[in-house]
């Protein structure tokens, strides 16, 4: 049958040529020309079709959003599957991603990117039978995990005035003779990520003391200036000096104790207030002065350094519980926060004013002699409080207060302190940071508090130190 048909077509072709006037001698060359020319037209059209489809695909403006390494990535897009086939996305596998094209044209690219960097994926597809495979390059970028960029390089122990990269302490004060629980102190200090990344030392410091005989609590926290090369020593000397000074003056001071009681019994009495204030100045203000002098002495002993190389802030408080409540006296120079927080009365009382203007980094330091020349130094920096009770007394460097409170106004807002207290106890579950259980005599709070200080806050990677009397 096929042969008959072929003969029939050949005869039809013959007839058509004869009618058009093609002579027998021209027949072969005409046929060659006709087929060749039609074939070229055919190919051109096929190519044009491919290019049109390619332009359509390019015109979709496919762009993949940036992802983050090892974080779930997924993007959806549509391709004209009625016009293209055999779609692949070359390079996806190597990046740890899976490409899928659905029959309805809905495509997806998903998975967890294996490596960070800038890459090019190639979308390959067929358009028209016989045409080469088409290709479209699509860039994609995966960010590194910012947390992995913060390397932790231990501080060289041979540097002058070396101190460990972190520190923590728990001062457990067990119930007294009457069986009533007594407050404890917990403190932790963690080197900031910005220092850890460069193997630089921690500049913060804290010191704690509880006197068993007199029941006085003494807490000091200091933040060595980031720009001062030996501030780690400045903060250490400042803390230790005030603790020693206050310890000695408070261990056995019946005169001071009597003044406190007399003042408390008759708070309107100006004379009694003056008496106790004088004694507070003697203990607290002199303590701060001594800390200044002590840092100065260390600086003078070092030939290649000046006092400002030891620049540090300082806050410290002495506290004692009486039958009428708590007596608290404190001194504060520099930024950070010192606050008496009480859930029952819903109060958060800042024990001073942070030395921070509109721009941070303009803080005052203990090491600035003008601090003590300021006639208002006592009224500005000294605080004396009597309260029935409190939930916690917080002392913290700006490495903690900045990310937690942001502005000075928030530091004066009770609700912000409540939020802070909740964050302390709940931790940051998303970042796998556990909360701190501040219950009496819970010594594990020490380790928890140190771990809590690792919280993540973009742009806040300063040293962090916090001391809590609770």
């Amino acid at each position, binding site marked *: 049958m096929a042969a008959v048909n072929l003969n029939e077509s050949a005869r039809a072709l013959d007839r058509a040529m004869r009618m058009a006037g093609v002579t027998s001698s021209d027949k072969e060359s005409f046929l060659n020309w006709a087929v060749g020319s039609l074939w070229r037209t055919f190919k051109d059209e096929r190519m044009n079709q491919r290019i049109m489809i390619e332009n359509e695909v390019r015109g979709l403006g496919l762009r993949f959003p940036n992802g983050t390494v090892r974080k779930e990535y997924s993007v959806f897009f549509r391709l004209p599957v009625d016009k293209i086939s055999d779609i692949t996305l070359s390079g996806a596998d190597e990046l740890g991603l899976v490409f899928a094209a659905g029959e309805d044209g809905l495509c997806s690219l998903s998975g967890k990117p294996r490596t960070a960097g800038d890459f090019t994926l190639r979308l390959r597809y067929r358009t028209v039978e016989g045409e080469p495979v088409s290709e479209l390059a699509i860039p994609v970028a995966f960010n590194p995990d910012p947390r992995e960029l913060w390397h932790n390089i231990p501080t060289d122990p041979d540097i002058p005035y070396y101190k460990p990269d972190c520190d923590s302490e728990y001062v457990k004060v067990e119930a007294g003779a009457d069986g009533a629980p007594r407050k404890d102190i917990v403190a932790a200090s963690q080197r900031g990520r910005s220092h850890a990344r460069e193997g630089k030392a921690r500049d913060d410091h804290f010191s704690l003391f509880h006197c068993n005989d007199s029941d006085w609590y003494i807490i000091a926290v200091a933040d060595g200036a980031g720009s001062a090369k030996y501030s780690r020593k400045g903060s250490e000397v400042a803390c230790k000096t005030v603790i020693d000074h206050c310890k000695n003056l408070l261990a056995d001071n019946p005169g001071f104790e009597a003044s406190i009681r007399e003042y408390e019994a008759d708070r309107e009495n100006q004379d009694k207030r003056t008496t106790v204030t004088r004694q507070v100045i003697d203990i607290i203000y002199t303590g701060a002065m001594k800390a200044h002098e002590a840092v100065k002495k260390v600086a003078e002993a070092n030939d290649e350094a000046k006092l400002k190389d030891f620049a540090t802030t300082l806050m410290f408080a002495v506290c004692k519980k009486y039958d009428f409540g708590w007596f608290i006296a404190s001194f504060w120079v520099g930024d950070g926060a010192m606050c008496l927080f009480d859930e029952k009365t819903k109060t958060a009382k800042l024990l001073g004013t942070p030395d921070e203007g509109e*721009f941070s980094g303009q803080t005052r330091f203990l090491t600035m002699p003008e601090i003590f020349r300021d006639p208002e130094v006592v009224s500005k920096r000294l605080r004396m409080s009597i309260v029935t009770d409190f939930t916690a007394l917080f002392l913290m460097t700006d490495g903690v207060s900045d990310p937690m409170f942001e502005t000075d106004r928030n530091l004066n807002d009770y609700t912000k302190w409540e939020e802070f207290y909740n964050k302390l106890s709940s931790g940051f579950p998303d970042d796998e940071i556990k909360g701190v259980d501040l219950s009496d005599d819970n010594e594990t709070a020490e380790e928890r508090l140190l771990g809590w200080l690792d919280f993540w806050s973009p742009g806040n990677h300063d040293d962090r130190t916090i001391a809590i009397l609770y």
Partner: protein
Amino acid sequence: MRRLPVYLLLDCSGSMFGEPIEAVKNGVQVLISTLRQDPYALETAYLSIITFDSSAQQLTPLTELSAFQQPSIQASGCTALGDALTLLAQRADQEVTKTTAEQKGDWKPLVFIMTDGEPTDDLNKGLAEFKKRKWGMVVACAAGAGANTDTLKKITECVVSLDTADSATIKAFFKWVSASVSSGSMKVEEIGAEATTLSELPPPPPEVNIVI
């Protein structure tokens, strides 16, 4: 969180066509890839691209580095630098968060301007708007002999020049911009203040000359 806004003002006039504009595109790409590796910049730096030819347009609004995508940049037309400064001032008003009692605002923006010719529009009008705002570091770069450093000095004290607008030189400039953004984002965190003079930036490479 206090962001560090970074505005790039790029001349895309006809004279930039060819090698210079390709080098600028490449430079932006390298800038982004490099900054993504820097934890300070990745957390704090936000980037916007404003281009100017016969008029100015913001190709990319202020965008965090991790989400930033290279815009399509083409060269044609004149050099509307004045218009670009006006647009910069307007966009910064919109995009940069101001400090309030409850919230610390963004750091003052870093601005890098690159041009290869004299402005063809009214520079003074844009300049007036620009000067009304507070900026952190503003660096103007005269790329090649066609740019006038005296004109750029009206915008900022910090003017640098490139002898030629070839790809190697433009690349060096962008590398320096990248290093400056890195050190700027580290500085705001460590010292708590923006850089304001050239001496606070990393030293420029030999291809980038400081104009005194």
